[in-house]
């Protein structure tokens, strides 16, 4: 195996396109090295993107935040301004694994690993995040919602890799939140995850919302019908009940050792309600 560590995006693209064998992009490595060890991945080369300076930055961009693909979860959690704007996204990222994992794992890597239960993905989808992808044909931006195409599969074409995730500018009186159900208090994989991002007007009426569910379909899903139950309401009990029903209706999970279909369908609604209440409070609405 060969280890490649380019220092610019252009060099990375060139190296990635010129590899004849299987070349895997290495960001935090907390999924890739585990897959290599267990024999699920046997790359001919590894392209480490952590030596590319611009991929290590969290920077203001177009009113929002651009989080480089090599930024660790711990670095996101320590960035007070990012946390103030997108607390739900950062809390979702910070739920992944242990302190040790947080020291390496990246949000872009969580997206590319394409687990249906990835914690950060519903939060990014609710936030309206956009992935920037570099490849032989140049740079393209694509909604995070469209990146995973199935368990372990993404829309990335050969020679492409994600360089950053952009989180939009957060309007006034907005808030987001992510909750997951796991049978323990930490260090586990989501049985169901739910993210809500919403905006209120001065009177406390919801003017915009995005709701996303994880671990209840082959990919994390954006649930427009759930968002519609919140928009135009004050996110009161009636709206929250409708939100829960819409999320349960949208959940199409499998049954496995971590949860039955019935349980996951029910919990999707419960988590949506709770996440919406947190998002509303963060947006400055009456609790």
């Amino acid at each position, binding site marked *: *195996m060969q280890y490649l*560590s380019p220092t610019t995006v252009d060099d990375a693209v060139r190296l990635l396109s010129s590899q004849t064998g299987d070349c895997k992009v290495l960001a935090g490595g907390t999924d890739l090295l585990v897959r290599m*060890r267990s024999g699920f991945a046997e790359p001919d080369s590894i392209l*480490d993107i952590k030596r590319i300076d611009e991929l290590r930055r969290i920077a203001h961009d177009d009113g929002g935040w651009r989080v480089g693909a090599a930024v660790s979860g711990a670095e996101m959690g320590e960035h007070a301004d990012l946390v103030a704007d997108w607390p739900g996204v950062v809390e979702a990222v910070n739920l992944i694994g242990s302190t040790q994992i947080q020291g*390496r794992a990246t949000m872009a890597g969580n997206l590319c690993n394409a687990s249906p239960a990835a914690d950060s993905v519903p939060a990014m989808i609710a936030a309206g995040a956009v992935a920037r992808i570099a490849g032989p044909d140049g740079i393209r931006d694509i909604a995070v919602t469209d990146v995973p195409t199935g368990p372990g599969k993404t829309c990335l074409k050969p020679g492409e890799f994600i360089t950053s995730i952009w989180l939009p500018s957060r309007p006034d009186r907005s808030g987001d939140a992510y909750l997951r159900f796991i049978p323990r208090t930490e*260090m586990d994989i989501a049985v169901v995850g739910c993210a809500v991002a919403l905006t209120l007007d001065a009177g406390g009426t919801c003017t915009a919302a995005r709701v996303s569910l994880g671990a209840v379909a082959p990919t994390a899903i954006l649930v427009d019908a759930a968002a519609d139950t919140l928009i135009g309401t004050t996110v009161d009990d009636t709206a929250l009940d409708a939100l829960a029903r819409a999320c349960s209706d949208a959940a199409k999970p499998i049954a496995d050792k971590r949860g039955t279909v019935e349980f996951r369908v029910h919990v999707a609604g419960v988590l949506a309600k709770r996440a919406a209440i947190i998002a509303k409070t963060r947006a400055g609405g009456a609790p």
Partner: protein
Amino acid sequence: MSKIHVTTTINGDPVEYLCDAEDTLLDVLRDHLGLTGSKEGCGTGDCGACSVTVDGRLVCACLMLGAEAAGHEIGTIEGMAKGDQLHPLQQKFIEHAALQCGICTPGILVAAKSLLDHNPDPSEEETRYWLAGNLCRCTGYDKIIRAVLDAAKDMREAS
């Protein structure tokens, strides 16, 4: 395949080594450099027995390639005591009997030191969450938590 030449810093000392691309940092520490304090429990980042710091940040040495260490500052359990002088955490682990078989101990000490470097006055809950990635099958954790909190108290009073 030619070996990769890596120049790095380990416990404050400049170190050079040759490794294969697939060698993890843990392989390098244990098999090439004889620093066997870091243990391999799972090899998949679940147990924390191989905890080290990279530029002051706690990571699992099994989830990082040896080649990735180039130019960074690595801290291992071997750098914790100063000669014969144990670190207060090490001393408290002995006093509280916070270990039995000892396999998890180096990783837990490195992780606990990293906690106290970040937060000299952690609550019990913060300590338990910080150490959630370090598994111990002997102690039941209570003695470990007590030792860490006691060491933190002494270190605050000493500073």
